[in-house]
């Protein structure tokens, strides 16, 4: 028994003397509470929507007024045509469109019902369901208000259509998210571990004292991971087509091209991480803690970025997977072309070049 206590005491001493681990053990839960408690939430406010009013009578005006007044919605435009709506959805400018057909008010009074056309962006089914529910509750309220003044019950019925994902399946949302996460994690972790392993084993010493140029070491570490990741990518796309019924709506070539770009970005991050890590364990921890958390939280597939406090939104701009996620959704789900994703592609290219240059500069050609 005493032996057990002695051993336990020693273990405590070990833990408390390891500053880095302590930081993680206590820092992490605190960070998580703060993040999840205050910064990230599933609640949706100020969703951008469009309103199209073909009727323009007292009833529609009143209802529009109510919608405007609620804090759920941020009315982007009061658009005139369906084409403009389509374009806005594709660009991701609006999450929902509410369309009042002509003679809305007359139909309501004379027949007792009127149909309200609602189109929502179904690529994030959770979001879509939530905002259509918000709308529904406003309409129901209005229905009750109307019922007080009228002889017969008046029903405004919203008819909801989900774009891009009519059945509101989860796959269209999480597959792009998973792609971003998996590629990012695998690339950074594999690369950083491979380089640090060389350092740990001592073979790096011999490689450095040789005519072998350091840049070749880097390229040779990146090459197999690039290939493996491309294979991974193909597997994910094939599986999601066959089993999840989620084929690539847009150009496969474009998707693969952008994915390779993203892989290169992740590899560069792995390279950067390997420079300061001295053990494989540290490299792995660095990849997990340093990359997994930001990727999961700030990519936009678990928590909508638009709802985050400003500082987190700003930070999310630095996370490459956020841009990749947008590209994948637009190309894979919405079937858009390069013109819709050129900005994001440019950002990723810039990130890759920057990271690679920094890593190359800082790659240690000496043992210190």
């Amino acid at each position: 028994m005493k032996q057990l206590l002695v051993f336990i005491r020693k273990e405590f001493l070990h833990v408390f003397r390891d500053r880095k681990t302590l930081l993680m053990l206590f820092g992490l839960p605190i960070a998580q509470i703060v993040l999840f408690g205050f910064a990230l939430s599933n609640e949706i406010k100020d969703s951008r929507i469009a309103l199209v009013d073909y009727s323009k009578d007292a009833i529609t005006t009143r209802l529009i007024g109510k919608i405007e007044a609620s804090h759920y919605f941020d009315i982007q435009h009061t658009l005139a045509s369906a084409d403009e709506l389509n374009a806005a959805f594709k660009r991701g400018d609006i999450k929902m469109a509410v369309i009042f057909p002509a003679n809305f008010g007359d139909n309501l009074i004379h027949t007792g019902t009127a149909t309200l056309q609602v189109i929502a962006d179904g690529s994030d089914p959770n979001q879509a369901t939530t905002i259509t529910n918000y709308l529904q509750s406003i309409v129901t309220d209005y229905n009750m208000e109307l019922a007080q003044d009228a002889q017969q019950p008046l029903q405004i019925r919203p008819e909801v259509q989900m774009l891009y994902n009519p059945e509101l399946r989860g796959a269209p949302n999480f597959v792009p998210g998973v792609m971003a996460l998996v590629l990012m994690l695998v690339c950074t972790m594999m690369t950083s571990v491979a380089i640090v392993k060389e350092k740990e084993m001592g073979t790096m010493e011999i490689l450095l004292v040789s005519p072998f140029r350091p840049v070749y070491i880097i390229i040779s570490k990146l090459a197999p991971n690039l290939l493996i990741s491309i294979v991974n990518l193909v597997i994910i796309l094939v599986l999601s087509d066959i089993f999840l019924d989620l084929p690539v709506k847009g150009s496969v070539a474009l998707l693969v091209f952008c994915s390779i770009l993203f892989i290169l970005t992740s590899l560069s991050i792995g390279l950067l991480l390997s420079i300061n890590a001295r053990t494989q364990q540290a490299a792995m921890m660095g990849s997990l803690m340093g990359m997994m958390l930001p990727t999961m939280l700030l990519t936009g597939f678990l928590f909508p970025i638009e709802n985050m406090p400003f500082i987190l939104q700003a930070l999310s701009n630095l996370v490459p997977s956020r841009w990749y996620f947008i590209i994948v959704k637009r190309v894979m789900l919405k079937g858009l072309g390069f013109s819709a994703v050129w900005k994001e592609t440019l950002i990723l290219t810039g990130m890759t070049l920057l990271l690679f240059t920094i890593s190359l500069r800082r790659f240690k050609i000496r043992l210190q």
Partner: protein
Amino acid sequence: MDTVITTDKLTKKFGAFVAASELTFEVGKGEIFGFLGANGAGKTTAMRMLCGLLTPTSGKARIAGYDIYTQTERIKRSIGYMSQKFSLYDDLTVSENIRFYGGIYGMSRPAIRTKTATLLDELELRDEAKTLVRELPLGWKQKLSFSVSIVHDPEIVFLDEPTGGVDPVTRRQFWDLIYAAADRGVTVFVTTHYMDEAEYCNRVSIMVDGVIAALDSPANLRDQYGHASMEDVFYELARNAKRKGD
């Protein structure tokens, strides 16, 4: 002689490979017994069996009076062990290490306290009691390791190449500690690569290819093989070994 270790045809096989074959010998109380052999000769396997860490395939042995098959826990409590690769915790202080090992060996708190004081005085480490072991020079670490390995006054202490890489003066100071322990009646079972250290032992055994090829006092071995030094004796025996540590 009071024997503290007796073995009778002790053997260890790993599948078809015979790591140690039919080891038969005795070690007496207070003896300094040198256990030599090239890498791969079977030394480590033999030591692990004697420490109760590895179950033999066949043969008999008694360590400190306990049976090697059925009483390994008793054996572990009656012996001390020190190896070059590990013995003390780098991120604990000198006194924390002593306290820990004392506790592991089941010593009472007052006993640990007295022992700590004695140890620190003997090694002249009073001022370093609260220093982390990783900050001690190598030589002091080795000496401290040895003292800690016998903190619980065991009957036998097993030393696995304890003086590797240490400067010549510290090495000799280390052996002073070994002599002092042997004088107190502790049996010292030591392996080493330094042939001059073989001479400090009362008796020496040389393992080659899993078998004990020679066992006697250094003086007798030198006479028997007609060499001036243990190094030459060892070289002659090891030279024709089939197993060069493969």
